[in-house]
């Protein structure tokens, strides 16, 4: 069944259209920077691209995961798959793996595209990193940073990509759970986005500080810590942990709901 789901993923026009759009995003950003020179100095690629990755993949990921079960219900194929029979747990597992493949594939492809455009437009010379790390502040203070070797950049970028991938899995788990609740894939995707927006608002709200360590978006920006010198592990570790909890809880909820649900679509 896993193979079937992966074949379906690969043969679906939507998969490639969304990845193409995602890859276009860093390219557009890079071209603007290269043309106008109003930009971070050469080699700021990785940090900027991570930002593009996290915000850009959010929408297609929640769409894909929200579509997992609800989409089959809408197309009427859910009843035929289950009557084949495909066990419900097995179907859900196959969907989850297909979503993971999409998330990681999309994140990696966007990172590669970004790296290629970045390298093509700005070169691959060693770059300067600020103590603060963020791209916006680095323009003025880049001279105070420490130099990084290309191998170092590669490792840090890999870490950031992995972190963002896992964060996106947390999103996917929420959308997958909603996808077992409703027969509308758009409803499930929008529900997941609504949850994230709420989480984002609460993170920014000082009076909600009590709950903020447990919110899914609390450590999203911690990927930037991979580009500090030395790497600031504290928030990265917490980010990985909280996303792990979200994935486990929501996948379990999705399974509990789907395994006992009357399929009337």
């Amino acid at each position: 069944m896993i193979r079937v789901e992966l074949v379906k993923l690969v043969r679906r026009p939507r998969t490639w259209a969304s990845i193409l759009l995602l890859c276009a995003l860093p390219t557009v950003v890079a071209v603007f920077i290269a043309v106008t020179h109003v930009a971070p100095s050469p080699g700021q690629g990785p940090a900027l691209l991570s930002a593009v990755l996290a915000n850009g993949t959010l929408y297609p990921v929640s769409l894909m995961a929200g579509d997992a079960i609800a989409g089959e219900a809408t197309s009427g194929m859910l009843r035929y798959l289950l009557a084949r029979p495909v066990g419900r747990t097995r179907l859900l597992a196959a969907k989850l793996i297909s979503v993971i493949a999409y998330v990681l594939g999309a994140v990696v492809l966007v990172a590669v595209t970004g790296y290629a455009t970045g390298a093509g437009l700005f070169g691959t010379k060693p770059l300067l990193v600020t103590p603060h790390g963020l791209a916006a502040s680095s323009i003025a203070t880049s001279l105070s940073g420490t130099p990084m070797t290309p191998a170092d950049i590669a490792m840090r970028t890999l870490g950031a990509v992995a972190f963002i991938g896992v964060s996106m899995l947390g999103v996917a788990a929420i959308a997958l759970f909603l996808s077992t609740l409703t027969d509308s894939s758009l409803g499930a995707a929008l529900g997941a986005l609504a949850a994230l927006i709420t989480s984002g608002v609460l993170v920014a709200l000082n009076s909600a500080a009590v709950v903020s360590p447990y919110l899914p978006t609390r450590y999203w920006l911690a990927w930037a810590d991979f580009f500090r010198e030395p790497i600031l592990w504290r928030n990265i570790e917490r980010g990985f942990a909280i996303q792990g909890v979200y994935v486990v809880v929501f996948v379990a909820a999705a399974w509990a709901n789907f395994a006992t649900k009357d399929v009337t679509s």
Partner: protein
Amino acid sequence: MIVTRGLTKRFGPVLAVDQVDLDVREGDRFGFLGPNGSGKTTVIRMLLGLVFATSGEIEVLGKPIPSRVREVLPRVGALVEGPSAYGHLSGRANLALIDAAGRAGGRRTRRHRVDEALAQVGLAGIDGRPVRKYSLGMRQRLGLAAALLRAPRLLVLDEPTNGLDPQGIREIRDLLVRLNEAGTTVFLSSHQLAEVEQLCTRVGIVNRGRLVLQAELSALRPVTGRVIVRSPDADRAAAELNGQVASRDGDQLVVTGTDPAALNARLVTAGLRVIEIRPERSSLEDLVLELTGPGADRIDRDAGQPGDHPPPATGDAP
């Protein structure tokens, strides 16, 4: 092949299926009839393990459902509430995906199975265009092909001839009879009573969630004791048979108190011409209409049902 005991399904306050005891035997061509919303589809979904019964037992191919669906369903082909397919893929790709789903048959023989199923439903020469460009009839055939993929012992078909033209309906009927003669039990629901009359050997009729009748079709169409005669000399025939004519419609008379042979001899002796003469039989349609109320898709202003219909099965709602 299919046995249910006291099968009941409640959706919230609505009692969709109420104490249904189905008995479909091996080799049957079983017609499952009833108005819209009478619970046919819910029963079919429960047989396939899609919907879980509130109470009661189900056995398909001698094994309990839903606990043993993994052993049972590979030998069951199903068409539930119309065919479905992935619109962006070709019919062949769709069948290959369905075939690969679940306990896959061998990959090497997949192509062969797909081709065979397509040939059975008359789509052997189908090209690579996506299913979303198919006509309704082609989709219906593709859905049937998916049901036939693994040479099932039992076919559960919900409205199998929906969307087909008269030739297509005939083709599918012949196919189902052929499969049945080769040993496949066929369980189908349909609104087309004439269809069911021609195809099925047994019928079950549901009304408001209850199985109101289950019997051999041949036992359900008794002669009424009356004779139908058509004659160009209907006026004189009516005069000749004065007192025995129950009703008249143009050149057709319904005659009581005689049998066709004696009536024919009498009319011919009197010099009257006869075009057609046959014993009157109650039709399946009459029977179904007599046993069932209006479908759930008919909403009358008055909440109460007319007196000649059975009391609503949902009467025990809180």
